[in-house]
């Protein structure tokens, strides 16, 4: 089986989904490179309790200042593990369970150097995802999360500090296979997190350069305006 290295940026994930996420990843990745962005909780200890994890820790947080620089650093550590494929997931994202059985086929195929997936934003709970407006996972398309490592490709990020993407720009232009495996995103699943996440998102994009104002405002919509669909396994 081709070697898969996953890479991840974490910060203060101890009371969130980190442990579950790492446990899930042990099922299909060979190594996991984690860059800890100066956590102040038990995040590093949780990471290190998994033998496949290679942990790198920063003393000062960088994510909110220059995400691209942080991503670039993580990429550098990741390719040092000599991977054949690289999987870029966050600590609150889960490939659905059948991925364990189906990923080997994606890794062994040789037509496509990149695999894209649909992301489903669970909203306020873990078994329903959001489908109104730009949240609709069926209509907003696929994003690349899994790429074949190609040392000859340029590893540069676009010149922007936020919303810079998880992978080097060159990898995002590869012909990709759109997989029907879904990614469950739990970032919005806890109602207590939603307001803080809204404030962070708006403070990072005060001029609404990356997303329309309405989309940010829809984060705080009352329950009756939000449309949900049940997650079927």
């Amino acid at each position: 089986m081709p070697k898969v290295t996953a890479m991840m940026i974490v910060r203060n994930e101890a009371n969130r989904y980190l442990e579950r996420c790492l446990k899930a990843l042990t099922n299909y990745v060979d190594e996991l490179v984690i860059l800890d962005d100066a956590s102040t909780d038990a995040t590093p200890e949780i990471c290190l309790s998994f033998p496949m994890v290679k942990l790198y820790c920063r003393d000062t947080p960088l994510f909110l200042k220059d995400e691209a620089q942080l991503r670039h650093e993580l990429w550098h550590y990741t390719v040092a593990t000599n991977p054949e494929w690289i999987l870029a997931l966050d600590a609150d994202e889960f490939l659905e369970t059948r991925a364990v059985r189906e990923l080997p086929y994606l890794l062994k195929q040789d037509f496509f150097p990149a695999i894209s997936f649909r992301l489903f934003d669970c909203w306020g709970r873990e078994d329903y995802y959001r489908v109104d407006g730009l949240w609709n996972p069926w209509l907003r398309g696929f994003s690349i999360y899994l790429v074949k490592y190609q040392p000859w490709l340029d590893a540069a990020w676009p010149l922007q500090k936020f919303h810079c993407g998880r992978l080097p720009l060159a990898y995002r232009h590869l012909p990709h296979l759109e997989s029907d495996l879904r990614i469950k995103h739990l970032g919005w699943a806890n109602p207590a997190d939603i307001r803080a996440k809204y404030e962070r998102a708006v403070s990072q994009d005060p001029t609404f350069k990356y997303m329309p104002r309405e989309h940010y405002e829809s984060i705080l919509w009352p329950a009756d305006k939000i449309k949900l669909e049940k997650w079927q396994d």
Partner: protein
Amino acid sequence: MTTKKVALLTTNFFHPTNERIIMGGAERYQVDLCRLLRELGFYVEVWQIGSGWTREFDGVRIRSIPVSRSEYHTFPDLSTAFYENSMAFDYAIYFILTLAYPIAREKSIAISHGIFWDWPGFDLMAGRLEERQEWLRRLGIALTGPQKLISVDTNTINFFNATLPGFYHKWEYIPNYVDTDLFHPPEEEKNSTDTIRVLFPRRLVPVRGINETMRAAEKLTARYPWIEFHFCGRGHDDNAERLMSQWIATQERCFYYWKPLEMMPEVYRQADIVIIPSRSTEGTSLAALEAMASGRPVIAGLAGGLSDIVLHGYNGYLIKPTVENLVAAIEDLARDKAKRQIMGQRAREVAMTFNRKIWAERWARVLETVFR
């Protein structure tokens, strides 16, 4: 001896504006043909519509020509630009018949993947007599240029011999193919007769009979608690896939997904009955051949070249794919294990004569006569 260069002209291998690429039958054919040409020692490049970008896929350079005008189902600007700019190439392949209009390279071959003008929408677009005449006139010119015309089914050849006669000697029948080593029946057929899985391994488009199949699935799953329907294929846009997912969520024992090519042999092996209920625009369907090679009886629609590979009552059923006919045919096979088995075995035997090696040999012979 220097390496001879072949340019293959097509319209959209990559979507002209983005990276989206869905490996349908025609795309797979193109990849396989390029591989064959390279195995035979040719250098191959693909040319298509696009903004002028150059990309690579499967080790083949793909160039785009920034033209997009199409009229009467031909692409005169694309064909002319290709003709003028591909002089450095020794030979050409027109991946779509009409691309050989209005001018074709001298040492060239054109391919027909089956008749696509038998769907009702075509009549809406080219229904007026003078438009139809102009379209046919252009087709006649497209047939004149290339030295050989390849057809994946006999249906197309018969149509042209009756409609635009005089090209009989140019036509070569090279039906589609299947890798019979990759697609094979399971080592051991499952014993349990508990569940019957019906597989629809097609894209979600009306001409492939998706709507009839959905209705038939509703009826049959309501009637038999042991029947399952599996819809395995992409939609043409995100909306089609969303609507399908929503419909599936309301159904018992119906499933929707798609799989990478590498998983398809397993998908066929897990099915009991495979349906290819096309109404039109069909050649010798790769999906039908793959199902047959996997030892599965095929219920096929009466369209295009499906009658070249399915004999009604021998290795499957060839039906007009109405809901009633589909329900009856599926019911018949679902309830009769012995029939499924014997038809499945025969399907495998028939598929052996469409082996990929035979396809490659036939192509090699044609290439020998033209590319010299």
